[in-house]
């Protein structure tokens, strides 16, 4: 190993040793950093998971075409075929009135009340999905007008409004995530900076003597930078553990919830990217906080005889 490499290793081990000698203080600092980093991580997971859970429909635009109740099933099938032939239509699903009624009976809990009805009150419904290149508001509007013009059609509903609202909400959460990450990042910076400041003051005599025998500023600063990086990295690992534990606790109940909605969605933990970003952010924040603190306070310590 080169001389400068072994210097760094020595500084790193020295910092580790010092942290290990004060386990309680170190643990408390790590906990504060870990909690501060876990919040934005959890928010980020929330956003990615909501996107994953709703991925099937957040981007898609659906038209629900309600036929008049007196339209026969054969006619409905014929209408579905002719809708499918349009170039701007990707897919058409026919939900016959009978099937809709059964589903409604099964999921709504109004089974007994429905039995009291003599006729099926539900119409046949066509779910029309436009091609991806025909999903602009204007194209969807013209498709809607075309379908509504059929005499058998009672009502055409475009399910875009709530998708837009949903995406807007998600955007708000994403912005909240940025704000939270910025504020808590600054908090981590302050915590590490202050911890390093206290350590510099504690080791004032040692710093003075080191400068006296010819230690450069870089030499004196190095162990504090390593301490900051270790705090940042340790805090990030702790944040990761906190989030993973939360995913573990929530996972089962969320899977059950998703099943009730007929979805096979399962809560995703932090991806490899998330983990990398979190650990990287911890290291960078730790280094930066220590550097700012060291630059401020080491300069003022000069040896005097």
């Amino acid at each position, binding site marked *: 190993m080169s*001389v*400068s490499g*072994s*210097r760094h290793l*020595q500084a790193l081990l020295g910092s580790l040793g010092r942290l290990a000698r004060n386990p309680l203080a170190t643990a408390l600092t790590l906990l504060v950093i870990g909690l501060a980093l876990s919040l934005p991580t959890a928010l980020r997971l929330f956003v990615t998971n909501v996107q994953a859970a709703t991925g099937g429909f957040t981007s898609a635009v659906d038209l629900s075409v309600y036929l008049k109740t007196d339209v026969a099933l054969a006619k409905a099938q014929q209408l579905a075929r002719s809708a499918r032939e349009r170039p701007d239509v990707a897919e058409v699903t026919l939900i016959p009135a009978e099937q809709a009624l059964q589903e409604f009976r099964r999921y709504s809990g109004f089974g007994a009340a429905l039995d009291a009805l003599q006729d099926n009150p539900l119409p046949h419904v066509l779910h029309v999905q436009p091609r991806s290149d025909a999903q602009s508001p204007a194209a969807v509007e013209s498709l809607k007008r075309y379908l509504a013009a059929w005499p058998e059609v009672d009502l055409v509903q475009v399910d875009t409004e709530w998708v837009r609202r949903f995406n807007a909400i998600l955007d708000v959460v994403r912005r909240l995530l940025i704000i939270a990450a910025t504020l808590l990042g600054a908090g981590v910076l302050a915590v590490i900076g202050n911890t390093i400041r206290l350590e510099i003051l504690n080791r004032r*005599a*040692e710093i*003075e*003597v*080191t*400068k*006296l*025998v*010819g*230690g*450069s*500023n870089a*030499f004196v600063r190095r162990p504090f930078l390593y301490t900051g990086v270790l705090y940042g990295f340790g805090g990030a690992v702790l944040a990761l553990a906190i989030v993973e534990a939360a995913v573990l606790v929530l996972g089962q109940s969320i899977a059950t919830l998703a099943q009730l909605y007929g979805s096979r969605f399962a809560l995703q933990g932090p991806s490899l990217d998330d983990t990398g970003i979190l650990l990287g952010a911890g290291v960078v924040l730790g280094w930066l906080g220590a550097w700012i603190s060291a630059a401020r306070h080491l300069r003022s310590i*000069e*040896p*005097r*005889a």
Partner: protein
Amino acid sequence: MILFDRVSKRYPNGREALTSVSFQIHTGEMVFLTGRSGAGKSTVLKLIALLERPTRGIVTVGGRNTGSLRPRHVPAFRRQIGVVFQDHKLLADRPVFDNVALPLVVAGTPFRDIGKRVRAALDQVGLLGRERMLPMELSVGEQQRVGIARAVVSKPPLLIADEPTGNLDPDLALEVMRLFRRFQDVGVTVIVATHDLHVVHEFGQRAIVIENGQIQGDANDHLPSVIAVR
């Protein structure tokens, strides 16, 4: 080795510690700086080690004008000077070995050489075998010798000591001074500030007498009259 040319030093509190002091010390000399406490002896040493900068005048150490030295070059400059303090400035929470090794670590000496050189320095001051002890576990005289070992471990060409015997009884003081002379014997320039006239007499080296920030005498082998009448 060292040249003071009309050097004055005024501290921020307004006290003038040195007034137009000039003297020269050659390589390999051993010189006592003497005078009452507060006379300016420590200021001379601080100016040599660049712990202070002169208000006026020029201080040259090893051919370099210290006034033109940039701050980032100060650490490398200090590594050329071994400094011994009255309160020895050892790190209380580190064993003797770590204290003595500090100048080597700071200078980037390879690890395999550090142990050898630390033991050699401790051997020179008669403390071999005490590497793992803490400074507090040693006597005052031994602590001072650890301080000396630290000052010489990186073999600096210049050794300066500020009242190194201030806390020692006369026997220990002489012993420490003999140690300094041994370093002079191997070519090190040694400057010792002390108000201990007994020691100065005993050694008969060149002595520069400072009173009220000015040089009152500079003589070899015999003490100037200002001291003698006191």
